[in-house]
């Protein structure tokens, strides 16, 4: 775990100072992710985003009198997958009722897990190698959505409200980290990595913009390195990674300001206001909720057998960090490897590298030229052939990019496409004589290239490359032309 955030660290997004000297942030995140099941957590209704309001519903998830919940086995399986991916202990768990009145919650209680969660005591390794503890990852059901019609759009003074129960009862996993995070950037990379894991193992689509992944942040501050845990505030309504960073920074500053003024924050839930860029208290203290948790008598404990857990473990897909490492181990740069995994194209890259393609060039293509639809179905051996053609001098970088685009579109092999486009490899002898001719035709420019200052040299380099490209209709390899220019210049 990182220790102390630099006292004058700056937020890459806003550039202002994070915290005054001597203070550090203590951040824990609660991530809610909707599980990618076909039906809801306890109801046969479809688990589907969108749709006309109140169409993806069933008497059970509407909480109609007399209905009873039945656990969705697939949700348990996905929950176990998540637990295993986060190195949790998977255990016998009990569903409990969290009681509070809210119009978008059909039963006026939420079925969640309280004392006994499905997964406990895990860890998540971030891309930079730091490790964040996972306290628990438990299953629960989502609520519906209210739309408040009135001036402010808030429930308190709405003229009336419309409720859509399509989302009510959708299976959720709530992943609670330990307060191990120390700055907003780290919090963001935690969410990014967690999201990548959920997507990679097929547990969730992880779409923050559709609300299928939601983040609440528990924020407190303390004197740097003190190890104490001070009063925290829970920040809700954070709808993007950028907001997460801003909200954490704002809230931590607020705490420091309070302490420095001789005051202290009080434990409460606060809401992030994206427009104002500040957090505001949710309910007042007098209305503090007592959720009156108790075991749900309509459900029985879920006790996954060791055999089932082993089966799920054996079928668990490779995790993002292992996939990144596989590419790095074969010589790919870390940033390109990360992008390849994020785009789910690391399998393609790996296969191309295995087939003899240059690792760096391969992930560069994946990073720069394959953020397109259909890239995933690219034939790995064709892709390897392309990279080999390019590194062997048969295609320029520009040509390779064009051929690659054609390959994605048509599925044809690179040689055929290159031939059709007339991308014949220009051999170096031909290029040298062409270049020599151009140098001869431009003696002044050549003199400035050889003898001028850096600025001149750069400018003239552009002129010569441009002339060569013009003469070859763009088919020359700019890199080779530069090499030849430099050779000629140093040869005097």
């Amino acid at each position: 775990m990182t220790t102390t955030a630099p006292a004058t660290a700056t937020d890459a997004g806003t550039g202002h100072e994070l915290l005054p000297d001597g203070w550090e942030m203590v951040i824990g995140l609660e991530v809610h992710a909707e599980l990618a099941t076909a039906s809801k957590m306890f109801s046969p209704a479809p688990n589907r985003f969108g749709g006309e309001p109140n169409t993806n519903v069933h008497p059970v998830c509407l909480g109609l009198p007399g209905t009873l919940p039945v656990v969705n086995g697939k949700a348990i399986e996905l929950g176990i997958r998540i637990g295993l991916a986060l190195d949790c202990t998977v255990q016998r768990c009990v569903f409990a009722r969290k009681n509070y009145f809210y119009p978008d919650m059909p039963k006026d209680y939420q079925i969640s897990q309280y004392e006994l969660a499905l997964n406990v005591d895990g860890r998540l390794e971030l891309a930079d190698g730091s490790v964040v503890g996972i306290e628990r990852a438990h299953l629960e059901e989502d609520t519906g959505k209210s739309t408040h019609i009135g001036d402010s759009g808030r429930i308190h003074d709405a003229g009336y409200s419309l409720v859509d129960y399509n989302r009510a009862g959708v299976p959720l996993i709530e992943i609670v980290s330990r307060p191990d995070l120390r700055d907003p950037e780290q919090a963001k990379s935690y969410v990014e990595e967690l999201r990548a894991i959920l997507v990679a193992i097929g547990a969730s689509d992880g779409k923050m913009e559709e609300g299928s992944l939601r983040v609440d942040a528990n924020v407190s501050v303390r004197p740097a390195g003190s190890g104490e845990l001070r009063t925290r505030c829970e920040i809700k309504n954070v709808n993007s990674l950028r907001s997460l960073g801003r909200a954490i920074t704002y809230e931590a500053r607020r705490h420091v300001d309070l302490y420095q003024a001789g005051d202290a924050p009080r434990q409460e839930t606060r809401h992030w206001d994206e427009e104002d860029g500040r957090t505001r208290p949710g309910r007042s203290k007098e209305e503090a909720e007592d959720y009156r948790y108790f075991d749900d008598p309509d459900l029985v404990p879920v006790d996954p057998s060791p055999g089932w857990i082993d089966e799920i473990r054996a079928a668990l897909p490779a995790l993002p960090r292992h996939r990144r490492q596989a590419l790095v181990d074969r010589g790919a740069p870390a940033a390109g490897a990360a992008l390849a995994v994020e785009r789910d194209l690391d399998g393609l890259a790996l296969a191309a590298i295995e087939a003899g393609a240059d690792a760096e060039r391969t992930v560069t293509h994946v990073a720069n030229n394959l953020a397109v639809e259909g890239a995933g179905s690219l034939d790995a051996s064709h892709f390897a052939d392309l990279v080999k053609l390019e590194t062997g001098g048969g295609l320029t970088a520009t040509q390779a990019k064009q051929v690659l685009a054609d390959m994605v579109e048509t599925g044809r092999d690179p040689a055929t496409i290159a031939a059709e486009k007339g991308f014949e490899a220009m051999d170096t002898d031909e290029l040298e004589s062409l270049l020599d001719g151009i140098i001869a035709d431009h003696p002044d420019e050549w003199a400035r290239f050889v003898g001028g200052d850096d600025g001149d040299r750069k400018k003239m380099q552009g002129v010569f490359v441009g002339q060569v490209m013009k003469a070859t209709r763009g088919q020359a390899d700019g890199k080779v032309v530069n090499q030849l220019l430099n050779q000629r210049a140093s040869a005097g």
Partner: protein
Amino acid sequence: MTAAGAADGGSAVEIAAAVAAGDRSAVEIVDAHLARIAAGDGEIHAFNTVVADRARERAAAVDRAVAAGEPVGPLAGVPVALKDNFCTRGVPTTCSSRILDGWVPPYDATAVERLEAAGAVVVGKTNLDEFAMGSSTENSAFGPTRNPLDVTRVPGGSSGGSAAAVAADFAVLGFGSDTGGSIRQPAALCGVVGLKPTYGAVSRYGLVAFASSLDQIGPFARSVADAALAYDTVAGHDPRDSTSLPDGHRPTVERLTDGVEGLRVGVVSEMTAPELRADRGGAFEPAVIDRCHRAADVLADAGAKVDEVSIPTAVAGLAAYYMIAPAEASSNLARYDGVRYGARQPGANTAAMMTASRTAGFGDEVKRRIMLGTYALSAGYYDAFYGKAQRIRTLMIREFDRVYQQYDVLLSPTSPCVAFPFGAKADPLTMYYNDVCTIPSNLTGHPAISVPFGTGEAGLPVGVQVLGPKLSEGELMRVAAALEAAAAAGGADPTGEDTP
């Protein structure tokens, strides 16, 4: 009391056999019951809703099936009354509460599906204490049900409407729910048989919940054989109820003639001993205790091994029950908030609308229990109340399991007294005490049956309760059948006392 002599009379067993054989018409049988309801229910008020047209249509369908030679079920043409907390597709389901005003379920309870699949004909939905909270049916928002045996007295509760409907022969079978005695106590007070099956034996899907860990559906009948047939029809695993038992249901009808020879019977001393009669506010009527002992003698004479057994935690159950049941109810009844269905009162904002709707929609007893339960689950009180009650429950289960290693069945009165006059138990605690003998089976999840056995004060019927371990319904039927036969032969009441 029964209309055995009427043209439509007979037991469920007889009616179903005659209808299936084409000897009798389901429509005529149903019409006769509807006519009796029309004539008599104005006074009794057993029903909240009578579904005459629907009943005639269903009966006609049964008759057509018989005429076409198609198979009909074991309850073909048998008129059934359902407690109004069973969900019935297209038929209002009120729980005798104003808060469900106007709500019509879009589905049938599993028990209703099974009854109709067996050819039974639902004639109506019966009155109950609001949300099944009470022991007299006086807590109904629609007014009380009167006991057909004495209309100045209560029929018991909470399933008082179903008990009265069967006693008055408005229906041949009735169904109710039993959370703390709500089938057995009204059965005793109306002189009919009532069974509370093993928890999980009958699906709760479609039964509007009062206390989920205690609620269980069961039948009312005028004979043990009919109760067995009714129970066999609705029992069995249901994937829509997670607490439904996986075990294959063992039919009880075939156990009726097994006799009681060799059965080990324990009479629960805490519920029959003279020194315990007058404590905690609700003295046991001496005649009630006497009938229970007489029942024990009858069984001993028939070859059962009978003795007294002490179960000290049995009476502690009452206190535990009145923590656990309200706690679950406070959560189960939260959904009645005026947002989605039922009665809504205006309010300046959502919270005010919910508060106004619940204030106007719930009656006093329901509010009392919601408050009790909310308190019992509150932070800081949970361990002292709900937690402690759960520990008592665990102790009771252990103690009864231990007792059932030595006894096949136990015997006790069903209710401390016969049917009482309206208003006689206006104090809630006095009313709660009425459940002292029935509550243990709900807390332990074990089955129990109440069978009429002689009479008590004012010549009103007394019920004897037979309790047994998990899934011992077959043994309960054996014992109940033996007691029923003895009572029919005049063996229940002492000579010289008033008999009806």
